């Protein structure tokens, strides 16, 4: 399949083919699924809500709960005020969440629904909350929607009591529950008391118990979100996902922040651990140092198989930069580093990494799509492809080993349970990468060259 992808690259200004991003609202929905007893609410047509739930469900293999304003012709003409009013009443009556997190869609944005005023006119039951954010699908990407929802929660809920809580807020960026669990473990080991926001662990990786919980016992609590203003500091992971929410909190409550790359690979994890260390001022525990040492050991042991191997990495900006950094640490050449999210700084950050490791002849591009990536690979191929499930067509057409990472991974199981962050995540990725490359070598070598020992 995809043999029709032509080698010759024609400059496209208007046509997007095989996107490497999706729209804001799904990001808002995923962020809201990281809050305890929260019902994400899509203020738009019913299809939006259904599509977002579907893609989230397909990635996590979990029920993804969200409600919709179910716009009709009438709403598109007269506005969605009555839809929201009815929806809020029904949601509190039937699903009984503690909080409804409303996000908009391209439709409700274009017809100009004034969400702030609609919400302030709602009759909200005592002790319950309704928050919102604007997520016009025609701006940014799902990453934008993710941080807009974070800002929405903070906008409505955060306060500063004047009594510091001594906690550090961690903004994990767009991460799998397995990553978030691992980040929490690292913070605990570093004796840093944290508020993780958002926190999809416990919700999007809920265990099988035989009992269905509409709101599994995970997620950032409302009081934790409220307390963000009293936090001593924010560690914001991933510039493109977490900088804006961090700036929001700094502006609103003067909470200082560190902006760090997503802690993928040795260097980026080091920076995270050091930031934690600056807070707790403790020695890095041996467990963590040992893990780091194991990762470096593994990288050295296997380096002859990764050295100078060409790799293409695509997906969301912060994840891609982290993966690129790890690939460079492994001595690989990140030939194409691509995101669909339209943030030009992304290419700059990637080029800084190329420069740091002396990687020549590598291309970084934001606002790109996978059709273009495929064309580039056709012109100058790579040894490995790392990205979301949508890379599998390229991998098959060009017969390139392929590792799945990022969002969405729709065609494999178990990924969201395990980390790619931290040294532990680094070990997992290094194993995946070497295994993919070495399996290929075994597959392609002559019978007489096949060896049990490598």
């Amino acid at each position, binding site marked *: 399949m995809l043999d029709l992808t032509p080698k010759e690259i024609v400059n496209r200004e208007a046509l997007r083919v095989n996107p490497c991003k999706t*729209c804001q609202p799904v990001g808002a929905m995923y962020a809201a699924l990281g809050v305890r007893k929260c019902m994400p609410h899509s203020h738009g047509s019913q299809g939006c809500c259904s599509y977002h739930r579907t893609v989230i469900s397909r990635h996590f293999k979990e029920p993804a709960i969200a409600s919709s304003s179910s716009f009709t012709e009438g709403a598109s003409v007269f506005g969605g005020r009555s839809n929201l009013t009815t929806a809020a009443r029904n949601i509190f009556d039937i699903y009984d969440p503690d909080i409804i997190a409303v996000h908009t869609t391209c439709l409700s944005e274009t017809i100009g629904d004034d969400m702030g005023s609609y919400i302030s006119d709602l009759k909200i039951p005592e002790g319950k909350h309704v928050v919102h954010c604007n997520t016009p699908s025609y701006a940014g990407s799902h990453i934008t929607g993710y941080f807009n929802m974070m800002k929405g929660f903070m906008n409505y809920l955060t306060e500063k009591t004047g009594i510091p809580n001594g906690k550090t807020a961690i903004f994990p960026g767009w991460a799998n529950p397995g990553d978030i669990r691992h980040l929490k473990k690292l913070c605990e080991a570093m004796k840093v008391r944290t508020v993780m926001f958002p926190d999809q662990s416990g919700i999007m990786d809920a265990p099988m118990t035989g009992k269905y919980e509409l709101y599994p016992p995970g997620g950032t609590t409302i009081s934790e979100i409220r307390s963000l203003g009293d936090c001593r500091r924010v560690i914001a992971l991933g510039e493109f996902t977490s900088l804006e929410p961090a700036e929001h909190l700094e502006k609103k409550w003067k909470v200082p922040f560190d902006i760090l790359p997503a802690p993928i690979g040795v260097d980026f994890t080091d920076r995270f651990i050091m930031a934690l260390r600056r807070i707790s001022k403790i020695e890095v525990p041996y467990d963590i140092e040992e893990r780091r040492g194991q990762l470096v050991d593994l990288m050295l042991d296997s380096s002859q198989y990764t050295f100078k191997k060409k790799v293409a990495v695509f997906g969301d900006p912060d994840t891609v930069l982290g993966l690129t950094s790890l690939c460079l640490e492994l001595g690989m050449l990140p030939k194409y580093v691509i995101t669909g999210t339209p943030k030009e700084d992304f290419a700059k950050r990637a080029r800084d990494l190329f420069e740091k490791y002396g990687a020549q002849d590598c291309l970084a591009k934001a606002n790109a799509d996978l059709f273009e990536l495929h064309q580039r690979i056709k012109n100058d191929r790579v040894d490995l492809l790392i990205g979301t499930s949508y890379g599998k067509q390229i991998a098959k057409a060009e017969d390139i080993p392929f590792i799945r990472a990022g969002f969405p991974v729709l065609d494999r199981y178990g990924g969201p349970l395990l980390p790619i962050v931290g040294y532990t995540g680094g070990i997992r990725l290094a194993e995946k990468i070497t295994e993919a490359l070495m399996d290929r070598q075994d597959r392609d070598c002559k019978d007489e060259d096949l060896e049990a020992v490598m």
Partner: protein
Amino acid sequence: MAASILEERKSSIILSGAKKGVSCEKESVSGSVSQRACVFCGARVVLNPITDACHIVHGPIGCASYTWDIRGSLTSGGEAYRNSYSTDLRETDIVFGGEKKLKAAIDELMESEQKPPKLIFVYATCIVGVIGDDVEAVCRESQKKWGIRVIPVKAPGFSGTKSQGYKLACDAIMDYISPFARQPASFGINILGDYNLAGEMWIVKGYFEKIGIPVISTITGDASSESLIKAPSASLNVVQCAGSASYLAQRMEAEMGVPWLKASFYGAQDISSSIVRVADALKDAAICEKARAFTAYESERARSVIDKYKPRFEGKKAAIFVGGGFKAISLIRQFKEFGMKIVLVGTQTGKRDEYDVIESIADDGAVVLDDANPAELEQFMAEKGADILVGGVKERPLAYKLGVAFLDHNHERKHPLAGYIGIENFASEVNLSMNSPVWHHLGMHC
């Protein structure tokens, strides 16, 4: 009925045997965690399997990305349908309009493809009408410029339910084939409303060819721009998924004189009776005879599959929640063939007449509900002690979490469930899920 059911929803839920009639074919209640999709989705899924067409989604990126390479409709030829094309509308386009961008996108598509398509569908999503784009004019112009068909599908998500989208897709197909309405008649059938999931269209097509009935056009499973235009010459339209394709059959009958009948290729009973009815409708004695011999032979073989699994399935309780009513009916019959009980039947977009049949054939006391949400599914499945749920992607994890087995009868099925071979796959999947060894680990055994 429990307290946690919304007042507005109560008329959409009844118990079979109550002779009251479930309320259906209406908009979802705001605030529901509905399992339903939208108008665009309906149009997109029906047209998507036209394999050599390019499907351009005119709107912000989401609608294109969520419908990229969906529903495993297999192809024997074209591949263009597997790419995701979109105008990826941005803020400036919302302000200044997206017509120019759409026109440029079509031009770029025609310039950049190795094999430029002969047919392009342009889907206008929610905001395109709101920002005032004249999509029809752009399509007309591009059509003229490139000498191909460029067909607009104006499918704003809010303008109705998924069924409305099916109708728009049927209109788009009519738009495409109408210029070929007058052509010499040829003996044979069109199969409508099968989307070739896991190659199901090929199986059904094979049966008809075996008994001497040529299949002229398949709509839209494994269809191509070439094969579609032959459709008006057929002697009969055989409609598998009634929800999505009955309207097309009605229009083809009215405008092209092609008669039609409903058929189902799920479950031994429905497959056999459908094949025989198609043969009878064509009024060819030799074919009728062959059809009867073929279905008798295959039914016999199917019998052995049913006998093999029946002891394991007998008395187990099935819950069904699928898109359309016609499929639900087939599933009820199919479970009954295995001696299973039906405790819940729901659809996203079932029609009045379909619900009447459902109510008449489901076991007494079964819950019948339209446009159910997870809370209702959960409540009634627990209440009725369902052993297995049949549904789609959003229902799977819900079923598992409830400790209930699951059968995907939707886009994500990987084995054909249609045809006689489908009976074996159906039984083996039901068996695999209900009797998975993993269920033993649910509670901790010390």
